C-alpha cells in the first residue's frame, strides 16, 4: 500500500500553548488508521493540523504533495474530508442542504448517484430529508456528518470521535457503516477515538498518543493483543 498521508515532525498548538511535539505518522490508502489516547493527548489537534485549521510546523504530505500551510478550503478541495469534533453540521439548514454542501465543490455528474448511495447507507436521513438538521437525534446527526463528508468524494476521511455521546447501539450502527465505507469506497480513514477497543477492532494500524507524542505504533491487531499497552495506555 502507498502512503496517502504522511506527517514528519508535526508540531502544532493554540497560541503560545504547544500541543503536538513532533509527530511522525502515515495513513495508508484504503485502510483505517486509528489515533488513540487520553483526553488532551492531542488527537483532535492532529486532525485540525492536517486540515489546516491551526498553525503548524513540520511537514504534511498528501498523495506526495505538501499541504502544510495551505488553507482549509484548499485542503478540502484536494480530497480530504473532515468530520470535526462537534460534527460540524449546518444546524440551521435542512438535511438536503447539508448533503448539497457536502458535494459543494464537485463538478462531476454523479452527485445524485452518491446521494442515493448515502440514502441506502443511512435510510433514516432520507426520511428526514427536508427537516432542519438541528432537530435530528445525536445519532442521526453523526450519520449526517459522515454522509456529508463522504459526499466530497474524499481520498482521505478524518473522523473525530464518531462515538462521542451516543448510545451503544447507535455506536454499533455507525461503526458498522464505517466497515462498509472501508470495504465499498476505498477511502482512507484516519480515526480519532476514545473508545480504544472499538477503534482497534476496525483499524488496520494504530498510533497511541500521549501528551503530544506518539508512544506506541503498529498494526492494530498487535496492539490489541499487547497486555502491557492495554493496561498502561488504553485502560481496559
Amino acid at each position: 500500500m502507498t502512503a496517502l498521508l504522511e506527517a514528519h515532525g508535526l508540531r502544532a498548538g493554540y497560541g503560545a500553548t504547544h500541543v503536538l511535539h513532533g509527530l511522525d505518522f502515515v495513513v495508508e490508502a484504503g485502510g483505517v488508521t486509528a489515533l488513540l489516547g487520553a483526553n488532551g493527548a492531542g488527537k483532535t489537534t492532529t486532525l485540525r493540523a492536517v486540515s489546516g485549521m491551526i498553525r503548524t510546523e513540520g511537514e504534511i504530505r498528501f498523495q506526495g504533495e505538501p499541504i502544510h500551510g495551505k488553507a482549509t478550503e484548499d485542503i478540502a478541495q484536494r480530497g480530504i474530508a473532515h468530520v470535526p469534533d462537534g460534527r460540524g453540521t449546518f444546524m440551521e439548514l435542512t438535511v438536503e442542504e447539508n448533503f448539497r454542501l457536502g458535494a459543494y465543490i464537485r463538478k462531476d455528474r454523479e452527485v445524485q448517484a452518491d446521494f442515493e448511495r448515502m440514502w441506502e447507507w443511512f435510510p433514516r436521513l432520507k426520511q428526514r430529508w427536508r427537516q432542519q438538521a438541528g432537530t435530528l437525534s445525536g445519532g442521526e446527526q453523526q450519520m449526517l456528518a459522515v454522509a456529508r463528508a463522504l459526499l466530497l468524494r474524499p481520498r482521505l476521511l478524518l473522523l473525530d470521535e464518531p462515538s462521542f455521546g451516543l448510545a451503544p447501539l447507535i455506536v454499533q450502527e455507525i461503526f458498522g457503516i464505517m466497515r462498509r465505507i472501508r470495504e465499498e469506497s476505498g477511502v482512507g480513514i484516519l480515526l480519532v477515538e476514545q473508545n480504544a477497543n472499538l477503534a482497534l477492532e476496525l483499524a488496520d494500524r494504530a498510533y497511541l498518543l500521549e501528551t503530544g507524542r506518539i508512544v506506541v505504533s503498529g498494526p492494530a491487531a498487535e496492539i490489541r493483543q499487547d497486555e502491557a499497552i492495554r493496561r498502561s495506555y488504553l485502560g481496559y
Partner: protein
Amino acid sequence: MDGLAHQIIAGIATGGIYASVALALVMIYQATHHINFAQGEMATLSTFIAFTLVTEGVPYWAAFFATMAISFVYGALVERILLRPVQNAPPLTHVGVFIGLLLIIGNATGWIFGYTTKVFPTPFASEGPLMGGLISAHELGSTAVTLAVLIFVYLFFRYTKLGLGMRAAAYNPRSARLVGIRVGLMLALGWGLAAAIGAVAGMMVAPVVFLDPTMMLGILLYAFAGALLGGIDNPLGAVLGGFTVGVLENLAGAYVVGTELKLTVALIIIISVLLVRPAGLFGRVVLSRV
C-alpha cells in the same frame, strides 16, 4: 376612511424601502454578527452615483442597473480592504470601523457631490394619483421594484448553489471551509449584495425625500427598527418588520404624534423590542438536540 387607506398604502411604499435596508443589515449581521452602521451612507453614495449618471444623460434604467453593479463592487471592496484585517478583532473594533466608515463615506459624499438638496428623478411617469387617489405612480412603482428585489434575493439564497454557499459560510464558517467553500469570498459577495440592495432602496426613496448626503440617516433608523422587530437574524422577518415599521410610522405620523415626532416611533420600537422580545417577532428559534 380613504385617508386611512391612503396612509396605510403610503406606509407600505416607504416600508418597502425600510425592508430593503433592513435586509441589507441582516445579511451583513448574519455573516459577521455586527450591524453595519454605514449601510445608509453607502446607499446614499450609490444614489449620488445614479444621480450623476442620469444627469450625464444615461437612460434611467441603464443608470439603475449600472449603479447596482458599481455598488456591488464597492461593497465587496469595503469588505476586502477594511473589514478583512479586523475580522478576528473584538466587537468594539468592528463598531469603531463601522462608525469610521459612516463618517468617511458620509463626508466624502458631501465633499464630492455637495450638500445642496437635489431632485432625484423617478422612472414612474406621474400621471396623477392612481386608484382614485389612493396611491401615486411612484409609490406603486417603487413598491413593485422593492418587492422584485426582495423576491430575487429570496430565490437566490433559497435555490442557487452560490446562495447556499453564502448561507453556509454565514451560519458556520468553520464547517463551510471543511466542505471547500471559500468563506472570505462569500463574505465579500455578501457585502456586495447588501450594498446593491441598499442602492436600490436609495434610488427608490430619493424622489420622495430628495437627495442629500444625510438622506438615509432617518431611514437607517427605521430599517434597524424593522430588522429588530422582525428578528435581526431572520431575513424574512426583517423584511416583514420593515413593512410593519413603514405602516406604523405613517399612521403614527398622521394620527398620533405628527410628522415632526415620527422618528421617535422608530426609537420606541427599537427600545420596546429590546426590552420585551430581543429575538424579534420572527427571531429564528434554532432547535438543537445534543
